Structures are given as C-alpha cells and as structure tokens.
C-alpha cells in the first residue's frame, strides 16, 4: 500500500474497491457453473410471473418454460451488480465526506495489490486507482448495469441460455470495472480486452444463427485494429517515459513541449484504439452489427458503458492530449464527421435497434468532439446522460420488441420481424408506460430542455464554439489550408446539423413505433401488451434519471435551478488542467461564465431541436407505412443509399475483406503455407533426407571387394594425413 496509507481515503470504504470487480466476477463464476450443469426439471410450462404466459395453449415447452435454474440466476445475476453499486455509492459518499481541498491535494487513491510484470525496467503492478473520473464511471457502470440486469430478468427468462447470459453479463461488468479502475495502461488494457470478449460472447449469444456469430466475430476483428493502435501507444509510452502508471506518466509528461511530435503520435495511436472501441470512423462498422445480441446487451454494452471506454481513455490521457493540439483536433474532427455520418444513416433505418445503434455512434461522435476540444468534463457529462437516456431508449425498444415477439409467438408467426418499425405503429395505446418514457428519452437526446441530454449537448457545443472563437491552443494549427479555429467552427456547424438530424430521426422512430395505426397484424393486435413490471420498473428509474440527469452540471445561465457546474468542480482535479491548457485559459479559471453569446447558443440549439421534431412530425406520414413484407412504394436513390449506410459495409467487403481473403488464399495459403512451408520446408526436408539416405545406401554394395578398397584407401589417407599433414 505504501504511500496510499497517507491518503485521506485510505482505511475507509475506498480500501474495498478491489471488491467492485470481484463481486461481478463471483456472479460470473456461479452463473457460469449453473449454465454448465445439466438442465434440471423445470417447474411446469408457462411463466409463473404471469404476463404473456396465459395464452400459450399450443406453445412448446422448450420456449415457454422458464430457463433452468432461472430462480437462482435471477437472484445472483442482478444482486452482485446491485451490491457493487451499493459499495460504489458508499465509496462515493466517503469521497464526498473528505474535504475537497484535502482530496485534491492528495491526488488519486492508488491501491497496489501485487506485482504483475517486473521485467527489467518494466514494472507493472496489479493496481487500482480511484479518483473523481473513475468514480463517475463506476457509478454509471454499476448503476445503469443494475437496472439493465433487472430488466434482463424479464426479457431473457424464457431463454434456454438464461444462466449463460447472466454469466456473460456479469463478466462484462467485472471487466468494465477493471477498465475504469486500472491504475496503469496494462491493467486498463485487461479490462479493455475483457469487455471486448464479453461483447463478442454476447453479440454472438444466439450463435445458432450464423449471422449472429459473424457479427460477434466482426466486432472482435474490427476491435483488433484499434487495439493494435492502443498497444503501439503503450509501447511508445514505455519506451519514452519508462512507466505505464497513470500518475507517474502525468508527471513525466512535464518534459514534453506542447505540440511535440511524440505526444501527437502517441495520442493518434491511442485514438485509434478509442475509435475501435467507441465505434468512430473508420472503425464504427462493427456496432450496427452488434445489434444481433439481446437488446439489454445493446443497452448496457453497446450504448451505455463499453463503447464509452474510448471517451474515458481520452479523458484519462487528457494531460497527454493537451500536449498534442493537432491530435486533439483530429479527435474532434473525426467525432464530428462520425456524428453527422451516423445521424444521416439513422434517418432511414427500419430496424428499431439499428436506428438506436447509429444514434449511439452519432452521440459518441459528440463525446469525441468534446474530448477533442479539451472539454473533458463535457464529454464525461454527455457520457453519463447518454448512458441514462440511451439505455432507456434501448430498454424501451427491448420492451417493444418483447411485446411484438410475444404477440407473434401467440399467433405462431415467430418468423415475423419483431424489430422492424414497419411492423409496429400505434403502440402508444397498448404500451403507455414505455411510450411515455421513451418520449422523455427522445426529448433528452434531441436536446430539449430540461431533459438531461440538453445540458450535456449544450455544454459540448458551447465548448466547441468557445474554443473556436477564443485564443485556444488550436489557433496555431493549420490543416488543409484552414486554421484550427476555422475547423472548430466547422465542427460546431456539424454539431448543430447533427442536432437537427438527431431530433428528426428520433422523432421518426417514435412516430413509426408508437403513433399512427398499428401494422403488427390483425391476429396479433389483441396480444400486444405492456411488458411486466420487472421490465418497466428499470425503465421508470432510467426515465427519472433522464429527466433530472442534467442537474449534475447546470450551466451558469440556469443558476436559478441549483448548484452550477457540480460535475465541472468534481472532475476539475483530474481533467481541469489539460482542459484549460487546450482552451488557452489559465488553470483554475471559472469554466462556465454566463454570457450573452452563450444564451444565444443555447437558444439556437433548442430552436434546432424543436425544429427537428416539428419537421419530422410534419413531413413523416406514419399512416402511409405498410407492414414490412407488404408492397411499399419504391425508394429513391438517396433513401436507398442511406438505408444501406452509404454502402460502407459493401465497400469494406469489396475493398478490404475480399481482397484480403483472395490474398490470403492465393498468396499466404497456397503460396507461403502450401508452397514454401509445406513444399519447401516440410516436404523438401523429407526429400533431402531421403536423397541423402539413397546416396549413403549406394555405398553399401554388399561386395567385400568394395569394402576392402574403401578400407585400403581410407588407410592410405589416414597414413598420408599422419605422415604429411
């Protein structure tokens, strides 16, 4: 423990942070063991909980029965996460109890548990670090995680792989906590890879269908590209600074000059890793396919937590990014382009989960915009609010999908698409709770006050505008003939356009899902009903968070509503200095000063959000929609391009995947493996040995005379060597 024993947090609940990942890991072990046990006799058919289980007269027991050990799994799975959340809340309370000045002075609380890699100059410990940033992440992960675990009880309880599902989900939370708690890059990388593994397992959860298994593989492979960058960044960090601990590195960076090429290079490699994990251009392509997993998984992993790991990493490495304004500008630009790109694609998706997937990519783009301009607090703020409203949207979509699935199941049309919005419509009458809550989340993501998304998105746009207009570190930069400030204005403009598109596509999703007439089918309509309470209750909690989440960080202009900039103050010890450095301001300056341009900016953002919603309501005609397989009016070229996401997948397939396959097959397999390794080395060495054997056997003539000659000549040679050598 060493120096940590002097820390104000030492001895308190913070000493138990090792328990945070251990609890879910325990859940993983128990649930995993249960999933491997032979299925016990399940108690009867149908669901004792009621909802949906009453009319399954002809249903087969395989589908309608509860999963094996469902009771035990339902208790263990969410409980371990709930306990972790309780512990996190206790730790948070203990952090709040310590006077702020003492906490800031002491720096992060680092707990070392064991030596991991003592190799030469490299010293990597199993160490956890607790500071204000990891605290926020822990609370989000365990809090939203608990809600999603509870929702999963309802959503997955009839799945035969129920125990396996919770095992994977627990495993994910364990690794995610390692990711945010790691006190150095390698420990963080363990979590980073671990969540990738859990993501892979859960995307391919229904692996019997080969497209789901492929989607899992795609996520894994695309992430490898990003991890390659992250690893290179780690190598460079160690080669140049001799350590990989966050605290030590932050001190070592002092030797670097602002704008040094080393810092820029490391940051760009780090960002490559972030682009993979957080689905940014060009590595976003795995996230839409990741929707093949169960919907709560999409909510937890592919919206609320794992995909935000990249944002966390940038914020965690903020001190380094502050030294590399060029790399930061790249982050902001990539974020902006991704946000706009994904938002346009989201306009034309029919699959409700695909809409949300592209929306997630778009919102992650916002976070990187903020992280890129050094507004790390804004990025983390949006990360938190996004976790609330996007988890709510995904779980709401899950509730809708569940309802449709149950309805189709009741009428034995199981092969109908329960995720296609053309099969929905008019669900506001049958699912009022989901309807209201999802509208709250939609208003939040669109940026309508006073919902959470408004505050965070406004802070991001405000920060971008402020950096563009003030003498920030970006002013000196020049890229493609434009100054860094000009590019930031471009980022800001893209942010505004994306805000408009966000409002449009989210309203479109709501209109097609909940409004208009129902298109599910005559037979199914009576079977549509609201999900059971175990699913709606987490929705309601998330709904409350979606509404009040913005209070975490109220802008100065709304100071009447409560304490201004709570999150700003909270995160300032971690990200304040790099943030101020990039903004060109003095460290410790008041981050949020109310001014009239800010009021104008907020006004513009709100106007744009409302404009988007109105546009969608006026322009879209849910009444004209027909069910998925019925005849529909042909699409225009633009629509088709958007629906196919600009054919990027096809382009990647033709341009990268297939040439790579051809190259691998013809050159690597047939040429290198078949020709050189098998042909030259394996068969060649066998041939050489056989040839040498044949030659040697020719000497064995069996004729005594020949042997005598050999002996005689040999003797002469030996005598010659002895006599004259």
């Amino acid at each position: 423990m060493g120096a940590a024993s002097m820390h104000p947090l030492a001895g308190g609940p913070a000493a138990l942070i090792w328990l945070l990942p251990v609890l879910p890991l325990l859940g993983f072990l128990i649930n995993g063991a249960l999933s491997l046990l032979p299925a016990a006799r399940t108690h009867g058919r149908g669901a004792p909980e009621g909802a949906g289980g009453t009319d399954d007269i002809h249903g087969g027991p395989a589908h309608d029965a509860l999963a094996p050990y469902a009771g035990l799994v339902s208790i263990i799975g969410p409980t371990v996460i709930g306990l972790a959340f309780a512990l996190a809340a206790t730790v948070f309370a203990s952090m709040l109890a310590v006077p702020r000045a003492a906490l800031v002075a002491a720096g992060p609380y680092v707990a070392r548990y064991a030596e991991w890699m003592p190799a030469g100059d490299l010293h990597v410990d199993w160490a956890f670090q607790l500071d204000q940033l990891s605290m926020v992440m822990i609370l989000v992960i365990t809090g939203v995680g608990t809600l999603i675990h509870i929702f999963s009880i309802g959503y997955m309880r009839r799945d035969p792989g129920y125990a396996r599902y919770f095992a994977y989900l627990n495993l994910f939370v364990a690794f995610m906590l390692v990711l945010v708690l790691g006190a150095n890059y390698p420990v963080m990388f363990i979590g980073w890879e671990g969540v990738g593994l859990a993501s892979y397992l859960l995307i391919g959860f229904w692996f019997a269908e080969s497209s789901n298994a492929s989607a899992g593989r795609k996520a894994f492979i695309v992430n490898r590209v990003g991890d390659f960058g992250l690893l290179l960044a780690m190598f460079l960090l160690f080669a140049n600074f001799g350590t990989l601990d966050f605290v030590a590195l932050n001190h070592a960076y002092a030797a670097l000059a602002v704008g040094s090429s080393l810092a820029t290079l490391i940051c760009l490699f780090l960002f490559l890793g972030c682009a993979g994990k957080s689905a940014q251009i060009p590595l976003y392509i795995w996230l839409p396919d990741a929707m093949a997993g169960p919907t709560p998984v999409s909510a937890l992993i592919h919206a609320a937590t794992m995909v935000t790991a990249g944002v966390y990493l940038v914020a965690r490495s903020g001190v380094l990014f502050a030294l590399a304004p060029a790399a930061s500008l790249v982050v902001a630009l990539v974020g902006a382009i991704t946000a706009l790109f994904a938002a346009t694609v989201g306009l034309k998706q029919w699959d409700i989960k695909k809409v949300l997937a592209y929306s997630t990519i778009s919102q992650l783009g916002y976070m990187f915009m903020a992280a890129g301009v050094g507004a790390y607090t804004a990025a983390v703020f949006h990360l938190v609010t996004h976790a609330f409203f996007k988890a709510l949207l995904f779980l709401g979509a899950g509730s809708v999908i569940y309802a449709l699935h149950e309805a189709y199941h009741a009428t034995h049309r199981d092969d109908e698409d329960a995720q296609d919005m053309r099969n929905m419509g008019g669900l506001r009458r049958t699912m009022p709770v989901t309807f209201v809550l999802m509208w709250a989340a939609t208003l939040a993501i669109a940026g309508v006050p006073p919902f959470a998304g408004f505050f965070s998105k406004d802070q991001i746009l405000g920060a971008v505008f402020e950096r563009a207009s003030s003498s920030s570190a970006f002013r000196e930069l020049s890229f493609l003939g434009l100054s860094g400030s000009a590019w930031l204005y471009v980022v800001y403009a893209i942010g505004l356009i994306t805000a408009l598109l966000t409002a449009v596509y989210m309203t479109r999703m709501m209109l097609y899902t909940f409004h208009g007439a129902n298109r599910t089918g005559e037979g199914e309509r009576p079977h549509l009903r609201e999900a059971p309470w175990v699913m709606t209750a987490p929705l309601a909690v998330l709904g409350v968070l979606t509404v009040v989440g913005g209070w975490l960080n109220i802008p100065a202009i709304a100071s009447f509503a409560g304490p201004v900039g709570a999150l700003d103050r909270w995160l300032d010890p971690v990200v304040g200095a790099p943030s101020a450095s990039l903004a060109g301001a003095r460290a410790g300056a008041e981050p949020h000063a109310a001014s009239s341009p800010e009021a104008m900016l907020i006004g513009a953002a709100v106007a744009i959000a409302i404009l988007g919603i109105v546009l969608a309501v006026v322009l879209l005609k849910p009444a004209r929609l027909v069910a998925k397989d019925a005849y529909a009016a042909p699409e225009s070229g633009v629509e088709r391009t958007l629906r196919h996401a600009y054919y990027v997948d096809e382009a990647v397939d033709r341009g990268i995947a297939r040439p790579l396959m051809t190259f691998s097959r013809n050159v690597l397999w047939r040429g290198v493996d078949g020709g050189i390794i098998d042909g030259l080395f394996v068969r060649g060495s066998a041939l050489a040995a056989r040839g040498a054997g044949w030659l040697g056997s020719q000497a064995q003539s069996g004729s005594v005379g020949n042997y005598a000659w050999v002996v005689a000549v040999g003797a002469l040679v030996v005598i010659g060597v002895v006599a004259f050598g």
Partner: protein
Amino acid sequence: MIAQALVIAAGLFVIGVVGVLTRRNALVLFMCVELMLNAVNLTFVALSRLHGGTLGQAFVVFVMTVAAAEAAVGLAIVIAVFRHFGTVDLRNISLLRG
C-alpha cells in the same frame, strides 16, 4: 640388415593388400590376409631385434595365436558360405547390399 627385413615385410604386405583387393576367391583372400599378418610379424621381429627388446617378439606370438583363431572362424564361415551358395566366389555374394 634391418632395411632388407623391412623392405621384404613391406613387399609381402603390399602383395597381401593387392591380393585382397583384386582376388574374389574367399580362400585366396584368406591367404592374402595371412600374408599381411605375417608381414607385420616380420616387421615386429626385425624391429624387436633392432631395439634389443623382447616385447616385439612377444607380440608376434600373440598375433600368431589370434591369426590361428581367425583362420579357424574364417574357414568355418567359408564352409558355411559354400554350403549355402555352392560357391566361394565373393562377387556373387552381396546379400548385405544397402
């Protein structure tokens, strides 16, 4: 005196070697081998006399003993070969070819 003895011994040895290398009859081969052995014996005796010791002569007794034993075993093998192949011409006997 010693020179003549050594020259005769060398000549006998060469005759023996040439015989072993050129002749194919197993019995002739044997006689050639004996010739070589005795050439060596002659050398031993001559050098022993030159040095005035008796060690070389003692060796000759050993060599003759071993040669007698070798002749007994060798002739037995030759008889076995003749019974099996009906000939002692070594050109035709190459069953140990690799």
